[in-house]
């Protein structure tokens, strides 16, 4: 298994790519990789995320050509301020707002190598109106109408684990794996950052990621901060507030980003 630096990962990416970002809201986000992406000259990105500050930062920089999300939130600050500004100014050229469950099925469809997965979620809702590319299918057995959630294929995925090893095993030690395994399997190339390069002697089920699912491991202690990464560290609420406070001042935001 390759072991790369954060900057070496960014060096493998190109403008115009579709990048999936693991974690959830302001929880165990691969922020070291996100900061490096934010500081790179890569642009015209399609970002696929259960969104938190990753989405806010990349939207504020105008790097996002298309955003695929079910929500964008900082949890303790329910509405992501940078995302709000970008949406209200109309600076994200294309947005695909999905039901959170549809989003998950899109990742699973990509991982399972099928073009879509059927679901009831989304039927009758505004999601179908604002996303005319979404189609329904008639069930061949019962005749009922279901949403055909298309595969969310990713060129690259970023996830952050509490622990990993040099062989490409990844371990989460917090309460929720989120959908990091599915982000990895939906991607052509998956990059897994970690707090420590040594697995803990914890229940085997904590070893969420195996090396069939990843292409490189990145050692990035503190690499989810300021988002939470339990049990290693809680969310840095003061740092999150400082980030949120820059939403109305692009100069302050640039200065904030440089300091990360």
């Amino acid at each position, binding site marked *: 298994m390759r072991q790369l630096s954060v900057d070496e990962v960014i060096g493998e990416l190109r403008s115009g790519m579709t990048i999936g970002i693991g974690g959830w809201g302001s929880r165990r986000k691969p922020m070291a990789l996100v900061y490096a992406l934010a500081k790179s000259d890569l642009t015209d990105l399609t970002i696929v995320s259960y969104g938190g500050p990753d989405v806010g930062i990349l939207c504020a920089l105008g790097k996002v050509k298309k955003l695929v999300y079910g*929500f*964008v939130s900082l949890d303790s600050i329910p509405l992501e301020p940078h995302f709000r500004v970008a949406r*209200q*100014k109309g600076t994200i050229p294309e947005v695909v707002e999905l039901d959170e469950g549809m989003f998950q099925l899109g990742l699973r469809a990509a991982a399972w190598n099928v073009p879509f997965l059927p*679901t*009831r979620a989304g039927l009758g809702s505004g999601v179908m109106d604002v996303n005319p590319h979404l189609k329904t299918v008639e069930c061949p057995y019962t005749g009922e109408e279901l949403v055909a959630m298309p595969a969310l294929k990713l060129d690259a995925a970023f996830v952050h684990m509490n622990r990993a090893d040099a062989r490409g095993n990844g371990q989460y030690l917090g309460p929720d794996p989120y959908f990091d395994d599915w982000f990895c399997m939906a991607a052509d190339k998956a990059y897994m950052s970690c707090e420590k390069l040594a697995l803990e002697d914890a229940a085997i089920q904590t070893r969420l990621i195996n090396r069939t699912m990843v292409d490189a491991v990145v050692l990035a202690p503190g690499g989810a901060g300021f988002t939470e990464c339990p049990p290693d560290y809680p969310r840095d609420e003061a740092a999150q507030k400082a980030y949120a406070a820059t939403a109305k001042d692009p100069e302050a935001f640039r200065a904030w980003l440089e300091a990360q």
Partner: protein
Amino acid sequence: MSLGDICALACAETFKGDGNAMVSPMAPIPKLGAKVCKALWEPDLVLTDGVATIIDLDGEVEGWMPFSRVFDTLWNKKRHVMMGATQIDAHGNQNISCIGDFAKPKVQLLGVRGAPGNTICHPTSYWVASHSAKVFVERVDMISGIGTDRGAAEIRRVVTNLGVFDFLGEGGRMRVVSLHPGVERAQVEAATGFGLAWPDEVPVTREPTADELAALDRFDPERKIRSRVEA
């Protein structure tokens, strides 16, 4: 007796009959109501800490409910959610996504979150802390949760600071179940942007019994949650 007591008890009543379902109250008053319901009437209700664990009424961890299992559970229909609503229409279509045109919203909110899937799969109720014509509108700007006219599984109740409502009016329209003590019909009509269905006699939302009040006090000992409810 306070308005907070009455609203929290009305929320508790919405979870009656839910048995061993997962209940997901999103705001403090519905959370208080869910605990009271579990303590008094529905001991098997599954409550979570809002993160990934199932907890009992003493806060002890019982089991595991990560987000992927929440989706499994809701698609399996074993859940009743009580969400908030920035806008809601006469059929219970709800909006938490954005205000204004979706292409360039005047106000970006959360996004639809899980509302489309919740509402088509399992019972949904709403808690609206401030009943107004800005919330109860003729047309919502972005349908997040679907209503009775668009295939909702069940929109059970809306509890507000003015009253309790269901969708058993003609054609699945919102109907008055009861108004809280002291609330007048004209006040509710002025604060609702569409015509409500009214019963011939409008009941008054009931006040908690001594046992119910004790249960409310158990989970809100300093009345911090209930004191925030305003008329």
